[in-house]
């Protein structure tokens, strides 16, 4: 029940709705008592021959009014209680989403999207259940259950009531136990299903390989085995699921037999009438739901507890990088001084960077080369202020970057990442990501600079072509160029290309670099690349090796230095020689 306390902030916020909803629910559980009672009275009146037309009419009218009142009350509590529950899920989802947007990259580095999605869907769903079904089962099992039992005990026969109730706790226990088993087995069934899903996904993505090796039959066999597993796991679920109805039937049958057996004795002893007996057995029927609800309640609340603590845990994670008090509200521009003594990623033991010092004047272009893991990306991530906790300083435009407002710092930087992520919307919207209302002409201009304009015009819908799963799938090179256009459109003070030309061919690469050179005269550019051709014209090149600068200088200076850069170059030259196979 802890979760109900933890959700009290929400219940308080919606106290009017909950109060009215619960009141309606209680009203229903009271009005529900009328039909059996009236049936009992009429039965008695008939057996005793004392029924009169006006009397009968009176009872029927009362019943009619009760029925109509119940209709409205039932409608009303649904809107109030279930409605509030839907509102809770909306509120929590919003909180979670807004929280997600504030989390630093390190947060996403540690977690998988799938897991976060599970919180946003399953856990929120469990909370909605708690605030809706949870409240309903709690109130209904107490009020309906309570009122029915009280009515049976007070107006009919308390001894008989106690006797009839004996089997019912077993039902609560059993259904609650089934519920738990069911959930466990259901999870296995889900797993089996998701295996099947993965298998299908794999077969379809790898269809060419399967066709090439002529292994369709074997693959179908494999699929058949997995689908048999799905059937098996689902049957295990069914074995429990099918227990509910028979259990309820069985336990209530025991209850009925007990009531009639002892009821008959009381009737013989003239402690109660036949009408009482009829009413009693109808009341017993009314107890099915509250008993079931009581069993459900435990499971709902148990799930709600787990989900609520998972969500609050997630929400309590503070963003690692925040604006300092009195942060500078100005877009940084100017020279860049990068002086890092030491830095390591929070998840790593080893230093990612040490003794990295360089300066870049406004308007200059710098190239960073080095192997994967040499620290290229770490430098960029620090520049973007995705990570902090380094020894040293990064000064941009006269101030350390952590003294700017994050928003302002990012306004200066146009970042094109390695893993060019595009949103599943139109190409135009992807390019105009920073400003959806920007003029079409600007979008074309950025696209032309990124050498993607002609490609886009070649698509059937042009700039309105939707990319991603629902639309056209772009080649890696096209995706890279769209993300370059997306960064260029904001006319950034500092453009960062993080190995963003790897999938474009040499000619296009050259054209893009040339366009950048002409168009970006006063602004600063940093390019990292595997291919030396992408950075050879830079004003300054640094060669990263094992987290530090091994060499720095211009292309010519570096070659003259006879070091790593030269080595890389020689390796490439060697490749050329090997490729030419000694024919030259």
């Amino acid at each position: 029940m802890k979760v109900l306390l933890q959700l009290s902030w929400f219940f308080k916020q919606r106290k009017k709705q909950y109060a009215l909803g619960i009141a309606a629910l209680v009203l229903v559980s009271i009005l529900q008592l009328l039909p059996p009672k009236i049936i009992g009275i009429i039965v008695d009146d008939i057996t005793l021959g004392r029924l009169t037309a006006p009397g009968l009419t009176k009872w029927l009218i009362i019943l009619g009014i009760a029925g109509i009142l119940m209709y409205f009350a039932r409608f009303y509590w649904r809107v109030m209680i279930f409605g509030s529950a839907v509102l809770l899920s909306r509120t929590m989802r919003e909180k979670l989403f807004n929280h997600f947007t504030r989390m630093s990259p390190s947060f996403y580095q540690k977690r998988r999207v799938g897991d976060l999605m599970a919180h946003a869907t399953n856990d929120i769903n469990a909370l909605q259940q708690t605030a809706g079904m949870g409240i309903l089962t709690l109130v209904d099992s107490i009020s309906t259950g309570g009122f029915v039992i009280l009515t049976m005990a007070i107006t009919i026969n308390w001894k008989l009531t106690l006797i009839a109730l004996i089997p019912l706790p077993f039902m609560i226990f059993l259904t609650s136990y089934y519920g738990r088993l069911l959930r466990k087995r259901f999870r296995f069934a889900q797993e089996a299903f998701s295996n099947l899903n993965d298998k299908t996904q794999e077969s379809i993505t790898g269809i060419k390989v399967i066709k090439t090796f002529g292994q369709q039959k074997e693959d179908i066999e494999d699929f058949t085995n997995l689908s048999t597993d799905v059937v098996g796991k689902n049957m295990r679920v069914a074995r429990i699921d099918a227990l509910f109805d028979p259990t309820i039937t069985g336990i209530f049958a025991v209850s009925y037999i007990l009531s009639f057996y002892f009821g008959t004795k009381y009737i013989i002893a003239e402690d109660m009438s036949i009408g009482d007996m009829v009413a009693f057995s109808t009341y017993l029927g009314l107890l099915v739901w509250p008993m079931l609800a009581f069993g459900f309640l435990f499971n709902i609340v148990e799930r709600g507890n787990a989900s609520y603590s998972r969500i609050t845990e997630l929400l309590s994670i503070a963003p690692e990088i925040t604006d300092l008090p009195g942060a500078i509200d100005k877009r940084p521009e100017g020279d860049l001084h990068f002086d890092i003594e030491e830095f390591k990623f929070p998840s790593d033991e080893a230093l990612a960077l040490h003794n990295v010092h360089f300066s870049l004047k406004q308007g200059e272009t710098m190239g960073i080369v080095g192997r994967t893991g040499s620290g290229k990306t770490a430098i960029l991530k620090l520049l973007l202020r995705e990570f902090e906790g380094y020894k040293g300083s990064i000064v941009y435009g006269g101030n350390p970057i952590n003294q700017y407002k994050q928003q302002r710092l990012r306004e200066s930087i146009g970042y094109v990442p390695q893993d060019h992520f595009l949103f599943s919307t139109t190409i135009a919207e992807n390019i105009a990501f920073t400003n959806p209302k920007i003029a079409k002409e600007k979008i074309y201009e950025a696209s032309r600079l990124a050498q993607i304009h002609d490609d886009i015009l070649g698509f059937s819908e042009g700039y309105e072509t939707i990319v991603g799963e629902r639309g056209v799938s772009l080649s890696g090179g096209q995706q890279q160029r769209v993300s370059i256009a997306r960064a260029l459109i904001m006319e950034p003070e500092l453009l960062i290309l993080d190995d963003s030309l790897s999938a474009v061919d040499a000619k296009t690469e050259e054209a893009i670099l040339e366009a950048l050179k002409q168009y970006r005269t006063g602004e600063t550019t940093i390019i990292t690349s595997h291919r030396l051709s992408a950075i050879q014209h830079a004003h300054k090149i640094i060669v990263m090796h094992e987290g530090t600068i091994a060499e720095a200088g211009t292309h010519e200076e570096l070659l003259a230095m006879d070091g790593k850069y030269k080595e890389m170059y020689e390796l490439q030259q060697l490749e050329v020689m090997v490729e030419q196979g000694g024919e030259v």
Partner: protein
Amino acid sequence: MSVEKQPKLTGKDQWQVLKRLLSYTAPHKASITIALVLLIMTITGGIVGPLIIQRFIDNYLTPLNFPEREVTAIVLLYIGIQLFMVVVSYFQLMRFQDIALKIIQQMRIDVFSKVHGLGMRYFDKTPAGSIVSRVTNDTESIKDMFVSVIVTFLQAVFMLIGVYIALFSLDVKLALISLLLLPLFLAIVVIYRRYSTDFYQDLRERLSQLNAKIAESLSGMGMIQAFRQEQRLEAEFDEINEKHFRAGMRNIKFDGILLSPAIDLLYTGAIIFVLGYFGFISLDSPVEVGILYAFTTLIGRLFQPVQQVMQRLSIFQQAIVSASRVFKLMDDNDMEPEQQIVKNAEIGDGKIEFRNVSFSYDGKADVLKNISFTANAGETVALVGHTGSGKSSIINLLMRFYEYERGDIFIDGVSLKEYPQEELRQKTGLVLQDPFMFYGDIESNIRLHNKEMTPEEVRGAAEFVRANDFIEKLPGKFSHRVTERGSTFSSGQRQLVAFARTIATNPKILVLDEATANIDTETEVAIQASLEKMRKGRTTIAIAHRLSTIQDAELILVLHKGEIVERGTHQELLSQKGLYHMMYELQNSTIEDVI
């Protein structure tokens, strides 16, 4: 998580789909009969119970006369029936589940097999995600229908019949009047169905939009933050969230108006009617109160199944939509090219000849125009050219991924179309540009489904292509797990595994699509060396991106816009000073610039 459009179905379409769905029950006739018998027994038990109580009330309780034998008999009968019902209803529920699950399994296997029979054309125009959805998610929602809707529906029908039989046996006149409930039920169900379908559909779509938005935002959070679009995204999300909330509220209200509150109201109405009927009759003539009891109890049993049917209409609707999509896939006739086997042709030396082959994917623009060339046994023919020049199409035809009509391709003088499929698959090995790795381990990725291959053969193949160098360094070596499409391996390593996989089948003809991705130098050396070894003694058709890798090819074809514009050896082509020469210069100058 993509949001898919739901096809609009007319009533007639829906009926067709349902009929076809139900045809899947045919192989289970016997089992279904048993399940139905069990169902009828359960329902009969449920109806007989109140009737026994009625007898008890009228015959023994009202007159307060309890002959021991008769009463014992009736009590034992009641207990017996209840016990029987508990057992029978369990087996009945299980039986229906079993049938439903088996039907769905069959359907899944059918769809999956169908997918395997489809030609590459289908995969080109259909996103993988939506095919997967057909095989798994859509069949899952059909399962829900078989499991819950059909059983509930049958239950409701039998319950209605059973209750009415009982009512007629008790009081014909009142039972006749009670028949009026049927059109009322029907009206509620029809009205409910008309609106709930749309409302529920709307809610479902909004939810999938909502989840798609969260999923995409999470994957693209880096970009959203780098471009400081958090607030815009939050606003967009709020809007979707709000719409989803409204749809949810509308559903609650609608269900509140027509679902259980309405059914309960109707039930109260029915009780009033029954009481009134017996009450007013009793004013003139005696009435058996047991019958009154039985009537009120039995009529109550009519309402529950109706409500359950209504609650499950949306599942039904969803299943029909899903089924229509599944059937559409099953009816697709973009099949694999068919072989016209003339004789049991076998590939011997592996001489390949393309003779005047023209080809178009869409029937409009030709991507291959009159292609003719010969690759003699054991020779290498290299294909070079820009993206879209037709290199891959040549391979696609040679691999029988697509059917061609104009011109012909021969292996050892026999048309490609006349070989049995297995012969072609066995004797030709294709290495794809982006090698695909399956879930499993290294060994299973080399042997694939071939159970006859010994571990030694697997190792031999790996050794041959020099893949063992890196495999031996992995923890677990050949049993090292491969997960997430082999993303833990470099593309060079994946390529080597793909080589091993191909060489393990010892093909006569080798088709290579060279990888363009960055490959580290060490692996690159291994790849080049093993390529050379693999090509020995095999006819090879290779797409080359780096001209340097194919300089020793016996024939190089330079393609441009679907035509062979130059052909010859490396030296011949260089001296021609044509397109090949230009391409060569360009590739070299890129590297020279670095120098």
